[in-house]
């Protein structure tokens, strides 16, 4: 059975995402006039850490709220919008942190992160379009299968890789210098 489609307007959270990404891009370009900020520099590390923290919020805040035994605070749809916002803005910051160099573990991690984000966008705005939340009873089983197959497991794997990336950076760039 095809997913139920409920006509919605332009998602508000994407407007906020667009604004934030635009502002961050302008600021980044200003800083990048002297050359792309290295991932290991003050700016590079700064946006990497902020992006990572936003991703943690995206992961755990929505996860905590959507558990079946919770009914609040606030409507789950709002939490979902927040999840979308920080789930895109956070990875964008991390993308800027890479200075567009993708190699080794950090390169793999970036790739996984992009897959998580893209799968999330597809899951939210294509497969489960119109639903208040992906687990909405009105939504068909098939999108949910996709959801659990790609987006959710990969996000957990991504955090595992991120933890090793951070540990590696601390180990080599701080402890062993």
């Amino acid at each position: 059975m095809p997913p139920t489609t409920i006509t919605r307007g332009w998602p508000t959270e994407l407007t906020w995402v667009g604004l934030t990404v635009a502002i961050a891009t302008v600021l980044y370009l200003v800083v990048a006039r002297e050359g792309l900020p290295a991932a290991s520099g003050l700016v590079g590390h700064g946006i990497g850490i902020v992006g990572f923290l936003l991703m943690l919020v995206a992961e755990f805040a929505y996860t905590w709220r959507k558990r079946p035994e919770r009914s609040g605070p606030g409507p789950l749809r709002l939490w979902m919008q927040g999840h979308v916002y920080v789930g895109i803005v956070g990875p964008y910051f991390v993308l800027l942190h890479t200075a567009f160099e993708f190699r080794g573990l950090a390169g793999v991690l970036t790739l996984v992160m992009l897959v998580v984000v893209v799968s999330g966008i597809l899951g939210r705005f294509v497969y489960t379009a119109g639903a208040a939340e992906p687990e909405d009873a009105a939504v068909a089983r098939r999108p949910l299968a996709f959801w659990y197959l790609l987006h959710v497991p990969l996000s957990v794997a991504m955090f595992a890789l991120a933890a090793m990336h951070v540990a590696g950076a601390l180990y080599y760039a701080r402890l062993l210098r």
Partner: protein
Amino acid sequence: MTLPTNITRGGLGAAGLAVVGVLLAWLVWGGAMFSPGGLSAKSDSTKVLGGVTSHAALGGRCTACHAAATGGRPMSDRCLACHTDTQVDLRDSTTLHGAIDNARACLACHTEHGGPAGSLVKAGVGAGDHARFGFALDAHRRTDGGAAFRCADCHSSGTYRFDRARCEACHRDYQPKFVVAHVREWGSDCMACHDGIDRFSRGRFSHDTVAFRLLGAHQPATCVACHVDVRALAGFGTASSECVSCHGKDDDHKGRFGANCGSCHTVTAWTPATFDHKVSTDCVSCHRKDDEHRGEFGTDCAACHGVTAWKPATLEHAFPLDHGEGGRVACKVCHQPGRPYREYTCYGCHEHTVSRIQRKHQEEGISGARLDDCVRCHATGREHEGGEGGGGDGDGD
């Protein structure tokens, strides 16, 4: 097993796979997967340090530079263990590394993992921090042609030793006249005075900032006019502010009035000058050439003259100048122009004709030279005041 919604078994499995994958990669490739970028391929083929000619040749051997966490040695020790040439430089203060205070903190200036062609020096090091070597690059941002300065423009060798002759050679190219004169006046050890701040250029240095301000006729003076034989910056501070240190040769007074020129002269010009005659009462020491009296009146000029001007002058004339009935007589009535003032004649006056005087004095037996020396007997010009051999109360002429 109850799990948070997202931490599904699938999620845990994926995370587990990721960890296992990383561990396997670590076993196969070592820590290379954590490398933030490739190593520099910069190479000096004549040097083999630590068994390689470039960092890139180290491959994935992270431990070549990253000491084990338990090793207790900082990375800089590993740098110097291979870079024996830098170890030598550290003991030589004329080298780049020898001139740096904390030269063993390699990571303060150097970086890596910028790729094969990446710089091994952090951005901004050298240009912004060059003052630590005793020469800031404030005045060396752009060449005379407008291009950005490169290290090699001044440092010709790979060791970054600085050949001081390069200053002169480079500046001579575009300001030859100035450099020739400048080297002649100040010597060729540029860095003895210059530290790269360019504070002495025309219009940038104000002499008002030091105790001796350049006023009046001192304004157009060249530096070397006062700062003679200066060969180092400290030498500028030793120039004397005493006038005679520069103007001794200009002293028309030959030192008679001492060294305090400012008591009479100003910095605008030597003349006009104000002179305090209290400095000396020996008038002829200065005014002998001005003495129209040719020394006949002695050296006590002040007896007649004031300090303001030669004229008017007061004269205490022993012989009454208002002698006779015509009031004060002019000098030339008695003293002939061009003759010594001690000579006088009484025949300049119509009262005193030679024949009459001779006749009157024959009676007294006075004649000849004695007759011509009238004031000998007539000290105040009175007719019968008498004198040598003369009557005191005569009624004659």
